[in-house]
């Protein structure tokens, strides 16, 4: 069973601003449009899927529904989490009727950005990331990479 932290957010959508749920993986901050997020939860029992794709961490029982957990670190080619990383957080998204939970290090706030100020992906970005990233927002002290959920979930099976 997973503990949902009932962080169910609704979009207040002025046409020119974009609400993003932010989360961090390693020291990078990412954002996903809030309209695509179903749930934010603390991940507890994750069942393994032996021989599954390497980006799939396993399966969880989300209120009676079996949900596939995507290891965002593995997907982005980052080193695996160490045990000292604290509790793993999950951001649940939907794609073509199926639920997926993105395993991330920590979930942050919901932030609003002016769509017009979105920067294109830098040309020097890792091709793997460039494929998944949908542009970057800049704030005072961080760079927020917007992730494209559909492309993030386009995982090649073994």
């Amino acid at each position, binding site marked *: 069973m997973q503990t949902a932290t009932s962080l169910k957010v609704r979009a207040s959508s002025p046409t020119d601003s974009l609400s993003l749920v932010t989360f961090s993986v390693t020291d990078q901050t990412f954002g996903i449009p809030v309209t695509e997020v179903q749930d934010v939860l603390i991940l507890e029992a994750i*069942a393994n*899927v*032996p*021989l599954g*794709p390497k980006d799939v961490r396993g*399966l969880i*029982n989300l209120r009676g*529904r079996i949900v596939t957990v995507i290891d965002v670190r593995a997907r982005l080619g980052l080193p695996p989490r160490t045990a000292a990383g604290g509790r793993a957080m999950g951001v649940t998204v939907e794609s073509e009727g199926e639920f*997926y939970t993105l395993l991330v290090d920590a979930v942050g706030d919901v932030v609003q950005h002016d769509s017009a100020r979105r920067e294109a992906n830098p040309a020097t970005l890792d091709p793997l990331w460039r494929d998944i990233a949908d542009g970057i927002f800049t704030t005072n002290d961080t760079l927020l990479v917007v992730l494209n959920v559909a492309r993030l979930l386009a995982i090649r099976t073994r």
Partner: protein
Amino acid sequence: MDDLIGEFLTETNESLAQLDTELVRLEQEPNNHEVLSSIFRLMHTIKGTCGFLGLPRLEAVAHAGENILGKFRDGELAVTADAVTLILRCIDAIRDLLGALEATGHEPDGDDSSLIAALNQMANGEAAQAQPSPSTEVPNVAETGPVFADDGFPVAAELLAEVEAALAQGEAKPVVAPPPPPAPSVPNPAPQPRSSTEESRDPASAAATIRVQVGVIENLMTLISELVLTRNQLMQTQRVQGTSEFKVPLQRLSHITSDLQEGVTKMRMQPIGNAWNKLPRIVRDLSVDSGKKIELVTKGADTELDRQVLEMIKDPLTHMVRNAADHGIEMPAQRRQSGKNESGTITLEAYHEGGHIVIRISDDGKGLDLPRIREKILAKGLASESELAAMSEQQVLHFIFRPGFSTAEQVTAVSGRGVGMDVVRTNIERIGGTIELSSVTGLGTTFLIKIPLTLAIVSALIVEVCGERFALPQIHVMELVRAGGRSSSRIEKVKEAAVLRLRDSLLPLVSLRDLLQLEKVSANADQFVVVTQVGAQSFGLIVDRVYDAEEIVVKPVAPILRGTSYYAGNTILGDGSVIMILDANGIASTISCGDLNDQRDTSNAVKDRADTKAAFLLFSAKKRERKAVPLELVARIEEIEVPSIEDIGGRRVVQYRDRLMPLVPFSNDYSWPERGRLPVIVFSDGARSMGLVVEHIIDVVDDRMSVELKAGLNGLIGSAIIAGTAVDIIDVGYFLRQAYDDWFSGGKAAEQSTVERQALLVDDSAFFRNLVAPLLRAAQLRVTMAADGAEALRLLEAGEHFDLIVSDIEMPQVDGLALASEVKRDPRFQDTPMIALSSHVSEADKAAGRAAGFLHYISKADQANLAANLNVAVGESIHQLDNSRRAL
């Protein structure tokens, strides 16, 4: 208007399917006015609705078809095969148009004039008075209409009402249906019968069913599955915490959930007839094309099964019926030559059997061509000549399920579509079903398909390996063997290949850990082998632990996990954890590439076991005395909680599988304990069970045995040396009679026991002679034993009198079949009933047995029912003998 078209498509497709069936029926019974009227009505409805919806092409085609039907009905035209073929073509054209309409939303462009001309020509050419044009034909139809109008044109009327309602609410569209411009100028017939039909519509039948979107039911089913899981979780929590406060409402919730689940499952059920309603048409077309005479007989069309399952078996069934018609049934001349009825029969039968649907497809054609299959196997290099020689017929037949295996001598329009029996098997296995076949040269072929009622819920064994749990559907699990540690079985290696000696065969093993590339967590002395069977192939799966069997709700895996072939789905257990469901078929297909034990037939093992070695259950009854009972007779082993044992009139009983099961202690001076658990060996004959209370279950051993008979000892057959020690072999019959006085009176033997009858028992296996003899004695028979057919014949020649002969089939020199033929040839023994006991029990074997003169044919391998089957057979045989003697 879209909804209306959708509704129309559904309705019309149903009507067309019905038309196919009815037309074939009409061809067989050209004078059946009822069928004719029904066909006419269906076609008329289609035409009327098309006209109404403004579908001119459809209407024109339907109209031309209706013309001919009208003439049939009025007796102006004889129902000929040609005419029916033409109308079927017309229906096909309508179906194509509907398909295009469904895909694009509007009628496709095109020209049907040649078909319509052909139809009109048929209508006019053969009619006594040729009608100049269809347009004058229709008023004629309409005039005769009122006679039939009472039967109604329900679809048209319903649609009309709906359209009117829709139009009344909606925008101001023309209230009258748009007249179809290019069609023959036909007055739209739909409105005419309207007033009369609306009145005559049976309100009860209209209200009894409603149309529901499939998606709605699917969604409901998913929700119910969730509810079941949540319920299971709650029950688990309740069991762990043991708080009583919630116990009663929880139980109620549990019951309601179960009822709800049952209700929704029922809602998804559809009669299997829906899957085969196209078949009469297909068979009919085939017989016309090939010049064969074929009759299709269907039984149990109202047997219901889950619609998802139904969809999956539709194509395999069609394929198999097609095969039977194309390859199985011979040409009429050939059938006449072999003394058969000119017209062949294909029988389709469906019935329920213990949570499964059984579908039997049989034909009375020429049977599968065994020599040809053998040739093909050799040609394809699937087996060597010596391997082939060692195979039973059954094993050879099974090769037809291999990919790319087709024995059709010539590729006809029907075969050679690239769909073989391998696809049929794959489809059936994909839904957790099994397929078997038997074939007798010259008599026909029978396929037996067994499929689960519903895909949603299955019984599965939960196993653990390297700390991970997996579910394995029970349908594939044959038995469990503990290996290593204290157990007598152990896993051995031939080079890298792990094997297990299982009775007399060598079972190839697959380590689930290696297969799934799991990391070993801790050394485990004990391992378990789950003996798994997929088709004719069996193998063992090595696991660390085995838990209980659980009813699980199968959920498909997420699309991104579908790349692995080892999983059939995933599920949530009662404790809330998610586990993967293993796919035995997937695992089997990976290992068979490694050329393991492929095609090992278990009946072989059974045979060997019967002939040389035997498996025994060792137990101690009192004071640690070792006893043994043939494993063949044991239904299962249970542990019974002492508090659950009830005392009814001095007899101990326990509730077991919703029935009362009597418990019998091994000795009469047994003192029942107050608490704890008692190991119980359960013997069963289907509905009835009895439990023998013992001290300890020790082990299962198999050993070559020789029983030394001892007479007069209650409850013992004799003693034997098993696994190096002397043990008593118990007489199961003795205990059965203690539990049920009437256990053996299912037949008539016990009632008429004033005269002791003589039975001759022929079997070359000492084990079986000693196993069966007590059972016969229990049925009040005096038993004489013979070790083979020759000895039996000598006894008979010597003038010994026997009332009954029970014989094995496979014996050296004079086998059972030869013995039966000899006996039946002698007028002195003609009336002596004979019962066959064999480990080969395919339909073909049984047929051969019956042909040789055996009255009954009993399976040695059917452990649980051996005693009961034998008893019934003896009872019936004696009864028949009495009757025939009385007649003399």
